[in-house]
């Protein structure tokens, strides 16, 4: 249970969100900096999160920072970037054990100090970040992008999005592109960083067994941002006319083919029928009770995993499965026929009830996980509407089969993407 919440604007477009719960053994601080999703910016943001972790004025090397964090009872400090629709969010998270469990009264104060060092006092040499760090992290980030293809299941989904969203910002990956990363230099990066700190909307969420007045006072005192010409962000375009379904095949060294289908739902997250589109996704491919799981796995033994997921901010529905290459056409037809069934109204009351219960249960238990809770909260802030969980549950309870059918009729197939196997080589040596 979250016992109490409070939202305060502490500086222009710097909003502090305090969430109190005494059931956790930790305090968690999340700082979210909101940017538009653009190729060069995404590359710079992703690189920044790595460079900032390498050195700051007070802790000039990552090793010194890590020694400091060990001493704060294994505090965890991470910075990374996330893609929410066509927004790119630069995040810092810090988790510490709550002071009730460790012999340190100042641990919260020290954690805010550390965050402030990382954000406001990075290691600067002659108007730029340390060149050596920037070059090393460029190399590491490029390697991270290349390594995405190691995990074939998630690589398949990414490739489907790239093909489907050609020409749209959503195509851009959260780490940007290798080409853009290569072009970044240490001075330009620092200049850009100063700029985004000033001009971006910032949200700070703190969750734990916290005293609101104390936390607010500490943050106001220790964590200050320069503010100037704050940007406003455009919302995603979710509509696109589909002339012809794209059907793309790629060859890779895989044992198992990876199939992904991308649909446009044409239903935005702030429209009245959004909840119906979530239920449509769940009934179709949300777990072991879904139509796709029952027919393609349980009845026909064609796959081990098959599921559907919804990209909330971009209104894209993705269905993905690992199958034998020879079964591709059969599985595509089965997916299409299941979508068609829903469009024709073939949904039982039981399917609806199961889907509702599963969504509601996951909403009700959001408050059990500090990190998911603040991310969920932030996600709502991004959509410019914070709805309390009870109200949201009620909205789901009221959705009817007719509403789901009408949402499903708006859903259009855009892209079929398939990764199929080629021959591979194995050698052992003694």
């Amino acid at each position, binding site marked *: 249970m979250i016992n109490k919440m409070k939202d305060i604007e502490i500086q222009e477009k710097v909003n502090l969100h305090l969430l109190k719960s*005494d*059931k*956790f*053994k930790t305090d968690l601080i999340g700082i979210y900096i909101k940017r538009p999703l653009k190729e060069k910016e995404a590359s710079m943001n992703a690189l920044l999160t790595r460079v900032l972790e390498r050195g700051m004025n007070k802790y000039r*090397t*990552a*090793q010194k920072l*890590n*020694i400091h*964090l*060990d*001493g704060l*009872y*294994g505090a965890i400090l991470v910075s990374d970037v996330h893609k929410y629709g066509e927004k790119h969010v630069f995040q810092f998270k810090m988790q*510490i*054990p709550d002071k009730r*469990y*460790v012999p340190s009264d100042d641990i919260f104060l020290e954690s805010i100090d550390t965050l402030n060092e990382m954000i406001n006092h990075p290691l600067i040499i002659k108007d730029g970040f340390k060149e050596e760090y920037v070059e*090393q992290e460029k190399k*590491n980030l490029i*390697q991270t992008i*290349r*390594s995405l*293809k*190691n*995990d*074939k*299941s998630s690589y398949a989904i990414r490739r489907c999005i790239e093909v489907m969203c050609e020409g749209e910002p959503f195509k851009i990956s959260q780490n940007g592109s290798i080409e853009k990363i290569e072009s970044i230099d240490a001075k330009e990066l620092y200049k850009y960083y100063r700029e985004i700190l000033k001009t971006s909307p910032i949200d700070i969420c703190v969750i734990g067994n916290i005293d609101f007045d104390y936390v607010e006072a500490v943050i106001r005192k220790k964590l200050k941002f320069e503010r100037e010409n704050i940007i406003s962000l455009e919302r995603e375009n979710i509509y696109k006319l589909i002339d012809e379904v794209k059907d793309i095949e790629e060859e*890779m*060294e*895989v*044992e*198992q083919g990876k199939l992904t289908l991308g649909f446009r739902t044409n239903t935005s997250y702030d429209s009245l029928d959004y909840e119906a589109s979530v239920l449509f996704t769940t009934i179709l491919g949300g*777990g*072991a*009770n879904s139509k796709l799981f029952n027919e393609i796995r349980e009845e026909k*033994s*064609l*796959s*081990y*995993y098959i599921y559907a997921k919804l990209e909330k901010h971009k209104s894209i529905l993705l269905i993905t499965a*690992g*199958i034998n290459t020879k079964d591709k056409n059969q599985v595509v037809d089965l997916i299409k026929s299941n979508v068609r069934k829903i469009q024709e109204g073939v949904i039982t009351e*039981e399917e609806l*009830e*199961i889907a509702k*219960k*599963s969504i*509601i*249960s996951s909403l*009700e*238990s959001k*408050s*059990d996980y500090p990190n998911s809770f603040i991310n969920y909260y932030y996600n709502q802030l991004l959509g410019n509407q914070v709805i309390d969980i009870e109200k949201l549950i009620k909205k789901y309870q009221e959705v009817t089969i007719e509403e789901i059918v009408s949402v499903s009729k708006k859903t259009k197939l855009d892209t079929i993407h398939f990764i199929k196997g080629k021959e*591979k080589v*194995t*050698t*052992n*040596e*003694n």
Partner: protein
Amino acid sequence: MKIKHKYYKSIDEKIIIGEHSSGLKVFVLPKKDFRKKHAYFMTKYGSIYNEFIDDAGKIVKKPEGIAHFLEHKIFEEDEGNIFEKFALLGARVNAFTKFDATAYNFSTVDNFYESLKLLIDFVQKPHITDENVEKEKGIIEQEIKMYLDNPDWKVYFNALKAMYEKNPVREDIAGSVESINEITKDDLMECYNYFYSPKNMIIFVIGDVNYEHVFETVESELTKEFIERDYEPELVIGEEKAGVNQKFIRETNDVSQPKFIYAFKEVKKYESEELFKRAIAIKIALIALFGNSSPLYKELYELGWIDESFSTEHSFNKFFIHTIIGGESDYPDQLYKRVIQEINQVKKSGFNKEDLIRIKRKFTGRYISSFNSLQAIASLFTNYYIKGMDSFKYLDLLEEITYEYILEVFDSHFEEKYSVVSIVESDGDDIG
């Protein structure tokens, strides 16, 4: 039920243990104010139990992957669909098979006791037929192939195969496409009757629940047939030679950068608390030497030999003990030499005492923080219970560990001659 209460002061948690007359143990960890409740029904039967002694004293050998296959088939019902029954209660049911255990679990916000009944009921009443065994083979084949496409899984199992010649830990948990095709309904039922017995199983419950109500529910749901199953199975593990099976194992796969694992095999045997304490000491040493606050990590990261994927892991139970150092690197062979050099250096010069104190402090904080997550607590407790240990004694053991003890354990565990190298790399003409 014989009931016992235990309180752990350092983490401020309590656990209530009920022992049924059949030998089944039920553990309840109350967590006030959490919305979700989780329950696990677990058997000490995993992928390494392919060879065992039956009640006639005869050694029986089953195809690899049978424990995992059985896990899939337990979900078969005489009538209706078990996933649907849980879903109608608002609960989500799942299962997993590990080396040494199989668990069936659900989580739910509402209808907890109804769901608990359902869990106990379906695990006690599998409905396995020749027909549904055949049908499952296609699904499991896809599951095996999914793992074969995962280079992390490959580099890991290759390391196990390199270390062990006979120990069944070297085989994939799901078996192979060939081995699962040999499995029959009779094999499955034989293993079920043997390993799904009260003395070999536990129930673990965590969440905002009433323990008395949990115990009553369990008692009312146990079947006569289950209660009377009196086996305590015995496992046959082939005697392993002291050395490693194969020093180097390399495989070509479509990876962007070589993946490596260096594994150190423990050749001596340890049990229960000594094993636990040694494991903690080894983990402290690993962080001191290879963690992100160590001088070596800094050196290698700045050289570009490692990235943040560089990490260590220590696995232990009474059937196998080993340490793994892994990650991604363009120089996996040179890196291996550097790692061995560092180990030998520390054996001569010892650790920095301050580092060890700091790492103990880090472990304390991390352990306490892990008690935020009900799933994390459940897997911590049950994993250790299966190994014959009480995981909640961690902080006490951590406190007890001295500098000298870490040195001694380190010295005996890390031996170059008992280490192996597993590498998965691309064939060279396809970088990027």
